[in-house]
């Protein structure tokens, strides 16, 4: 089958459409997913095609959105709940962490929870500290799977996988990614959850890049190659839990150098988790020729003013600098 160039938002939308046509158990619920079409257009037009029973505009009730999804899943539906901004997931933590992640285990493995929670993080749009948080590390929790695609193709492949998974999947998008475009395979294109992707091959340094920062890492890799003759290998874990450590470890063992990039704040980040796994693995640790480095947001709430937010965020130059300092 062929490929079509489309935006990240469109890839998600078309995937939802395809899967909803295939599986009548799939229902979408969330704030303004219906008439509005989703504030980032991901669900635009689905209400018209599938009707209000399957595309459900909810009250402003994040805890109940996730809780209701859980109930639907228990009854055998396959809900896709949308939490408009990742900041608002703070309100649904009980339902996600204390229930969705644990219910199957507590039941002795007798129930299944085929549910997807879609959300996105909003940094980069001058929306301030309450609409810019990216906190995937809270969800490194047994019982949940966490994915964070960086390209339209990955968005499609991972959403398809999530919609066929019988466990709760937290599906994290990024506001700055929605309008990015790329080739997307047609048809039943599925990317297994738990598989990292080598987005660029290289031998001098490994850059593990999370979500939006994959784009920065790829740009940085080009600059490094063109201006400095450094060939970076860029790995996109894509699934943040469970992590595909094998792919990361073997790249690091090859290059001997590691930079991890993320839009999280440094402390308690998934980047820190990855780094700690590398440090705990003797073979990978001993292969390090220089100390690894995390390029992330600093430990500070995001400053709202656009230029300060820009200074706050990861960008290709920061990654280039981290690599050059390392190789100097």
């Amino acid at each position, binding site marked *: 089958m062929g490929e079509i160039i489309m935006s990240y938002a469109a890839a998600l939308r078309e995937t939802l459409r395809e899967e909803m046509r295939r599986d009548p158990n799939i*229902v979408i619920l969330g704030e303004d997913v219906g008439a509005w079409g989703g504030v980032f257009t991901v669900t635009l037009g689905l209400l018209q095609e599938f009707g209000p029973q399957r595309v459900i505009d909810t009250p402003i009730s994040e805890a*109940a959105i996730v*809780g*209701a999804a859980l*109930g639907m899943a228990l009854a055998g*539906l396959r809900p896709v709940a949308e939490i408009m901004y990742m900041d608002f997931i703070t309100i649904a933590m009980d*339902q996600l962490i204390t229930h969705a992640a644990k219910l199957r285990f*507590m039941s002795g493995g*007798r129930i299944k929870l085929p549910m997807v929670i879609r959300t996105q993080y909003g940094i980069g749009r001058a929306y301030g500290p309450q609409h810019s948080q990216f906190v995937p590390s809270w969800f490194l929790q047994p019982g949940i799977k966490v994915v964070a695609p960086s390209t339209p193709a990955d968005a499609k492949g991972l959403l398809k996988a999530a919609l066929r998974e*019988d466990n709760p999947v937290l599906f994290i998008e990024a506001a700055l990614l929605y309008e990015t475009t790329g080739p997307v395979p047609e048809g039943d294109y599925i990317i297994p959850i738990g598989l990292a992707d080598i987005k660029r091959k290289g031998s001098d340094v490994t850059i593990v890049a999370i979500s939006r920062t994959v784009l920065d890492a790829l740009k940085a890799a080009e600059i490094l190659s063109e201006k400095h003759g450094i060939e970076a290998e860029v790995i996109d874990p894509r699934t943040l839990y469970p992590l595909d450590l094998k792919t990361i470890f073997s790249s690091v063992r090859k290059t001997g150098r590691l930079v991890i990039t993320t839009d999280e704040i440094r402390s308690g980040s998934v980047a820190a988790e990855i780094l700690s796994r590398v440090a705990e693995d003797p073979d990978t640790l001993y292969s390090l020729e220089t100390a690894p480095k995390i390029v992330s947001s600093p430990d500070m709430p995001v400053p709202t003013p656009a230029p300060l937010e820009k200074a706050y965020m990861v960008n290709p130059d920061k990654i280039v600098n981290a690599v050059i300092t390392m190789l100097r």
Partner: protein
Amino acid sequence: MSRVENIGIIDPSRYGEYGISKEDLMWMWRTMMLIRRFEERVVKLFEEKKLVGASHLYIGMEAVATGVMKALDKDDYIVSTYRGHGHALARGIPPRLVMAELFGRATGTNKGLGGSMHVSMYPELGIMMTTAIVGSGIPVAAGLGYAIKYRGEKRVVAAFFGDGAVNTGAFHEGANMIGLWRLPVILVCENNLYGMGGRVDRVTAGSTGFSVIHRALAYNIDGIVVDGFDPVAVYIAARKAAEKARNGGGPTFIEARTYRFLGHNLRDPQRYRSREEVEEWKRKDAVIRLTRILIDNGYASQEELDGIEKQILEEIEDSVRFAQESPYLSFEELYNFIYA
């Protein structure tokens, strides 16, 4: 606009009128007695340190689960709580499984992984979730109810929770969805006057007479306040709610007025209430009352009831033996239960 109805104790002279048969009454009596004796045994096991961990007992409240479960069909969904031993037994989970779960054994309802606070989780009988987090079951009930409506099924959801739960955000968000979407959900509020040490009037704005039923109206949900010491009254209330829900009439909030005779759990020093108050409430004991009704109205003789009680006690002892002889899961097996 939603309305509130009151259902007090049903006089035995009216059982016929309500279609209450001898079998119904005998089932109710047996169920309540099973819960009572089972939990008394559990208390003893805790005192003997044979059981450890959480221990939220249902003694005093037996009529509520009994009346509600009687009104439900096999296919109906239930959401239960950490105070769920009574829900489990009234729903018909075999005592062996319940006891084994309390003992944490692989033969328990949830292979021991739920324990006392989740013992009633039993999808095989429709108990889809049992939560130890106050209020958290209500949004889940909304989701279950939505699924029923989406599929055009005739099931209902009965969601149990306490008086204290109505002040949680989760309750509010879930109840709003249930009222808004007219979901086939029965909200069963077991109002036992306290949420841990918090008496209803000290934690619930707008309550009068220690009731929380005014909250139902905020979500356009019809209310029924029912005497929670009469399993017949509770059954009638739940039957009415279930019928309405099955016929597309939407949700009902049943407030069963009850009381827990023991502490919140077995670690509760009960500083927030007096011994006299507890004794006063014990006079309403549903088990004693129904025993008297059965005998006084010729439904059963004392001997018959004693016989049933003996069976129950044997069944309970059997459950203890079964549990104690059952193995734990091995640690390695646990990894199988994290993901589907």
